[in-house]
């Protein structure tokens, strides 16, 4: 019974064994720790210097939280045309929801009935 807990999963084109993954992860952690410990022992955070924000003054820690709405701004701006279409689709009006259903129904019927 206990052996069956650790069986390897056959995934179609390969295999997956989480226990092997965890062991490998542990080994990588140990190697990372060894490299970390080989560093300078007398390092302090002050040695890192202050952040450079394009010449602007550093924002106080209390005001430096980036809110969810600002994240991935660049990605959303880059895909502006896609999102314009998507937002037009998502009207929030129940009539439109039913129209989409009818569109899909007609397409599916066309395919099945070979029209």
């Amino acid at each position, binding site marked *: 019974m206990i052996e*069956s*807990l*650790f*069986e*390897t*999963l*056959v*995934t*179609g*084109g*390969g295999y*997956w064994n*989480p*226990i092997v*993954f*965890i062991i490998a992860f542990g080994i990588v952690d140990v190697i990372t720790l060894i490299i970390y410990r080989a560093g300078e022992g007398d390092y302090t955070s002050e040695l890192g210097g202050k952040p450079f924000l394009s010449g602007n003054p550093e924002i106080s*820690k*209390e*005001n*430096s*939280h*980036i*809110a*969810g*709405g600002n*994240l*991935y701004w660049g*990605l*959303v701006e880059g*895909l502006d045309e*896609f*999102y314009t279409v*998507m937002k037009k*689709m*998502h*009207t*929030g009006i*129940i009539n*439109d*929801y*039913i129209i*989409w*259903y009818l*569109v*899909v*129904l007609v397409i*599916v*019927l066309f*395919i*099945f*009935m070979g029209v």
Partner: protein
Amino acid sequence: MIEFIQKLPLIAILLPLIAGLATILIGKYSEKIRNIWVSSILGITLLVIVAILFEVIRNGLITYTLGAPQTTPEAWDVPVRIILEVDAMGAFIALGIGLTTFLASLYSWRFFDEDRLGMNTYYALLMITAAGGAGFAYTGDLFNLFVFLEITSISAAGLVAFWSKKGTPYEASFKFLVISAVSAMMFLMGVGFIYGQYNALNIGMVAERMMETGFGTLDQLALGLFVASLAMKAGAVPMHMWIPDAYGETPAPISMVMVTISQLSLYGLFRVSFSLYGFNLDGVALGWIIVILGLLTMFIGVMMAIIQKTIKRLMAYHAISQTGYMLLGVGVGLVALMSGDAGSIPIYGQQAMEGGIFHILNHAIYKGLLFLTAGAVIYKTNVRSLDDLGSLAREMPFTTVAFVVGAAAIAGLPPFNGFASKIIIYQSAYILNPFLTAVAMLVSVLTLASFVKVFQSVFLGPKKEEIEGIGEVPPSMKAAMFGLASLTILFGLFPDLVVETIVVPAAEALIDQQGYIGGIL
């Protein structure tokens, strides 16, 4: 003993149904006793559902006929009767609704502390939802699929509208009700076509008669109605738009239950495709329709999630996106099954189906967990907007860890359960067409990006004065989150055990149309 085992599916339906009605009376006497009563009944129901699953896996189909002797050739003279026919797939799918309703009851003990008005009705509706869900999974009858679909939808609509003092739940409930009513009516129309054609409603009987007469125009019409209606209820793109409205406004424990209600419709779609039509139809076309719906669903779901600004709407779009993986897995399986020799399935097709079916259970677990963590955040802060939250990891470490587990699982990070099912889907879909895997993997990357956004904006950041000292959620809410987080980790660590024990039998049962027909005739 055998007779008792045959009655187990009926018990799983009737127990929460009758106890749900009794809940209203008990609640008038004592709130505490009512809470214990509800969770105990739903806990027992879950145990019965698990017992049915293992019984079906060990000894094959369970059939039970209501209001008449067991099926005999003479009994078919009157072809209308309620027949429960539980195969491994039906028993598997009932697990989700059993688990989520039980945990929702536990989580709800304290979740509505602020406003406890109408809690008797709330719990009664929750139990009726559990009964309807179990009935949908266990019935072997087309008309009763419709009936249980309606029971589940109407009780769930009541639950969506329940928290009427926050957000716009009435509007959300109205939309859900309209969508449910339209899909149920169209489904019923399809059932009418089938009944008119074959003078039978039992899935096995109809499939048998369809094989004799061949696949006709009315069958095609009915199939179109079944596929479109059930796909809408499952939240497939472009019929998904009701999901963010409903999941986003409903109380968090009900959002978790709603995920499994949508999965029931997905199960209905698979049941109709494999057990009712099976080799009678052009399965390759249907398989590709399901694959394309899956790709669209996963991609548009995740892209819309990225731009959301409230925590539950974002998670609702991810629920849509994850449904795409299930559609992809089972769609690839259907294409493979119908492309090969009759009755045989290429190995990659079988594994794709296993991946899709495994993902159904995994999704119910980690998405349920994520909704509960969102509920915990709202419970403590009364804030839904991602822009107004932050630094909660300092105050709510337990919820933070639970969220990280759920987020890692939904993003498909190893060694959590989402990775195990996704990798099966990736690798088996790749054999059919590498493009499918490329899209699925891209969606996983975007899912991770989206949940990094939630984690950063809700749990990280500098200390906020307004949340200082709010503390963690009560133990009952923690217990529900702990249960789901544990399952997320355990299913991730021992995926082969889960796949071999319950997923493979479910996939084999779904493919085996003759076995399903033979169970009743």
